[in-house]
């Protein structure tokens, strides 16, 4: 997907905001800094432990806005509904979206609905776009990440991917896993307003923590080192990953943020994150170890150093 963006869309749509490689764009409009983002949701199944596609479509976009340092304000919603989707289900999803929007203090202000013939859609696609206001003086961007920064994560990783997979593939794990699906805007706002010089924020979604670290390493031209033992993970997630043969660091989250900030402010930042219910499990997981060409290295519990590559597609075994 990164290739598609790199080779098809970036060249075609070339703009300063796009090349900043943010989760959302920050643009100037009438003297204000606005954050603007959009995302399309195709999750299967539509209902999963800890959430549903509606909730996800709100939190996902709100989180992307929050990762630019913005206070999310307004959302749009676009629906592509496949003929035959039970109306009750759609209602339930709509209500869930409303509740999610209320929870983050954002409002739906516009929308669109298309119905496609049976077989022409996957039940339901939702697109949401959102805008928010970036407070004066806030500058959060991948290019600000520099050697000496600490890397923090707001909680345990890998839940969402496992929760969705367990329902979709009917995997009745010994200990059920709930998605971490949640809005992290308040967490981000608290961090920023506490006066910490946050260099960059990212919410690890598809591709998990490993993908976020790789993106930042590449876009900021740095070398990232993280400690396996410091990365919060739930035993249930670990157990499921072990059975599936997955690496939890590559499994999606939907309610976590990764923060890059000066090492000296680590303790204050952790305190600020842990103050909030969604940041209780916050931890410092590593640091920006130097300039680099985008490498990410994990120090394992054995003390060896493993490269966290961006893998092509599914995790293809490399054993022989």
């Amino acid at each position, binding site marked *: 997907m990164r290739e598609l963006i790199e080779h098809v869309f970036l060249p075609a749509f070339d703009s300063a905001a796009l090349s900043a490689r943010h989760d959302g764009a920050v643009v100037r409009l009438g003297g204000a800094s606005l954050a603007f983002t959009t995302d399309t949701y195709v999750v299967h199944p539509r209902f999963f432990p800890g959430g549903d596609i509606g909730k996800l479509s709100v939190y996902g976009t709100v989180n992307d806005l929050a990762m630019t340092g913005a206070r999310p304000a307004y959302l749009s919603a676009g629906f592509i509904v496949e003929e035959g989707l039970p109306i009750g289900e759609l209602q339930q999803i709509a209500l869930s979206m409303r509740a999610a929007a209320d929870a983050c203090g954002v409002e739906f202000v516009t929308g669109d609905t298309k119905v496609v013939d049976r077989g022409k859609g996957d039940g339901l696609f939702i697109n949401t776009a959102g805008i928010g206001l970036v407070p004066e003086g806030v500058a959060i961007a991948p290019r600000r990440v520099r050697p000496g920064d600490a890397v923090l994560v707001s909680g345990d990783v890998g839940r969402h991917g496992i929760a969705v997979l367990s329902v979709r593939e009917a*995997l009745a794990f*010994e200990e059920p896993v709930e998605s971490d699906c949640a809005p992290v805007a308040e967490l981000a706002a608290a961090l920023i307003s506490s006066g910490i010089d946050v260099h960059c924020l990212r919410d690890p979604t598809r591709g998990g923590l490993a993908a976020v670290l790789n993106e930042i390493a590449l876009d900021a031209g740095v070398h990232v080192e993280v400690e396996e033992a410091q990365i919060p993970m739930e035993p249930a997630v670990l157990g499921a990953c072990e059975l599936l043969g997955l690496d939890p660091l590559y499994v999606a989250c939907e309610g976590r943020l990764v923060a890059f900030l000066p090492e000296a402010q680590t303790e204050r930042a952790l305190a600020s994150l842990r103050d909030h219910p969604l940041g209780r499990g916050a931890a410092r997981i590593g640091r920006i170890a130097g300039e680099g060409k985008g490498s990410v290295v994990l120090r394992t519990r054995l003390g060896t*150093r493993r490269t966290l590559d961006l893998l092509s597609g599914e995790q293809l075994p*490399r054993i022989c």
Partner: protein
Amino acid sequence: MPRLALRVYGIVQGVGFRPFVYRRASALGLGGWVRNRPGGVEIEVQGPERSLHAFVAGLTREPSAPARVERIEIERRAEQDAGPFQILGSEAGNGARPSVPADLAVCEECAREVDSETGRRRRYPFTSCARCGPRYTILSGLPYDRARTTMDRFPMCPACAAEYADPSDRRFHAEPIACPACGPRVQLVAAARDPMDPGIRSSGSPDGALREAAAAVLAGKVVAVKGLGGFHLLVDATSPDAVALLRRRKRRDAKPFAVMFGSLDAVRGACRVSAAEADALRGPEAPIVLLRRLSPAAARVAIADAVAPGTPRLGALLPYTPLHRLVLELVGRPVVCTSGNLSDEPICTDASDALERLGGIADLFLVHDRPIVRPLDDSVARVGHAGVELLRRARGFTPLPLPLRIDAPPILALGGHLKSTTALFFDGQVVVSQHLGDAHTAEGAALIERTALDLTRLFRVRPERIACDLHPDYAGSRIAEQLAAAFRAPLVRVQHHHAHVAACVAEHGLDGPVLGLAWDGAGYGLDGALWGGEALVVDGASFRRAAHLRSFPLPGGERAMREPRRSALGLLWELLGEGARDHARAWFRDAELGPLFSMLARGTGSPRTTSVGRLFDGVAALAGLRGAASFEGQAAMELECLAEAAGERAGYPLPLRASAAGMPAVIDFGPLLDAVLGDRRDGVSPGVIAARFHAALADVAEALAAASGLGRVVLAGGCFQNALLAASIRERLTARGVEVFTPRLYPPGDGGLSLGQVLVAARRGTD
């Protein structure tokens, strides 16, 4: 008087060949000269016809241990004024490429000097001469002379300088020449494990350091020793506690350790050693040789069981540097000698790096101040049907080239992901790098790139093609992509099993089509599936998949490498579907079975494979051997040992089934699994099951050969580390008049991939 000009090719540089020529010519009263030239040695000799004859004859006969003459070109020349025979300086700069010598085990003469009670090199750990000592590990550039080695920091004392300059001396132009007055020194350093300890302490005189290190080994401690190509970890091999301590600290459960013995006689106290095995142990390459252990009753020394659990074999080696000789002599018993690394990382070469990385493993560090330019592990060999067969190719063999008579531009091949090597082709030869280890560690991946570039710099070759595996996520493939861009060279991606077969084809210099049985753990197939039980008709740059093992799912993918029970489950699922559940209870808890069967039913996290390696694992688990393995191939190794002990048996049914036209035939494991399950029910022993399984594979190899109609079969891939499997297939096919080729000096496993990639990439332009 007649005069001859000779050009000598082979291993003739860095091995004391010129002094040897000098002594021969002088003894025969011949005039003329000798000098190194790129790619060989050039000689002109003048004298009576009969003496010239004797001279040439003497060259072709084994000249002196490490040297090897492959070819001599001779021309007549006009008579000249000839004074006494001379050694001239190297001919430089005519554009041709120099050769690089391999590191050589301490020779007998140097060993005698070290052992003697007198003489200036008595007990000196860095004694070497023109025929032995470090080469590739100390070389920073070419041509090979002292200024371009890490010996440049040790100015020669007058005594050494005199030997170095004297053509009649054994140390004439011996680049690593040294003595206690001017050369490297050892030092003992203690690792501070106590956080209150201020750090690192050093102790004593060089000889005191050796004694203290030896005493520590005898006291059950772990001692890290900086040797030729990196650090080793030593513990007393006769002490179960010491071996257990090493395993605990190194977090290595069961993978066998090698043992260094003080002498060949000492090896014989623990293992059976054939004449050929003795030669391999004592040769200048001095690899680790896999030997058969004596029964406890017959053994003179009790090697702790934990050294090599679950196998009747033991990897033995002899001290190959004076330093190792001295330590072994002082310890007086065999020591475990394993690479100084954290699991799967490259071997440590630098003292400060070793102190950091091995600080939690070793109690003491015996270090020295001669820098190591590149890491070099011990080679691992066994003596098989046709002599020495390398399972790991490194010290003593790297970087000796393999001639490859193909007209192609320079090619750099990046190999695979595990047990990796890289290779460089230029001027009709391939140089394959030393074993580099596993690339899933950052250090391992970095070492692959560093070594690839090192080869191009050392031989001054700019690659015009880059070759790598098809797997997009192999470290080698990623590095290859970057290097292809950097060198602006086209990238040739070579299918894994094609490369396995091609490596053996290259080694034996075969031409025309062969049937390649490429059986291994797994490699990326043309269809994106995990291949590993392939019968390929290989003809140069192209191949056709003639047959493969019936595919089965591998629940948990890569996890299956360490869990044979997953292979067993995948095989049974393929055969029995839900019916596999009852069998699977032997290996999994009920709570695990639910998700596992859902995964299998939907194909989630269960890539399909045709791997014979995983079939071995599955059969091992079914035979009741083990559900979990502490290293890849452990189950297969145990199965081999059991089969060997059980003796020959009739094979299980393993039919080769024809497919639709144009599709590969399929080796159907169904009847085999049925029969294994039946035997288990009947209480047949695991050994008999193992023997029948091996026989079935030999049967099917025979069927595959017959179906191909080809007279030449190549056996390649990691499964052929299994000596029993290779030998029984060889026997069957040879009886049918089929010629069988197996890897010899290049490993059958992924260490051979880079060589195979070179051949395919070279031929791809010409086919």
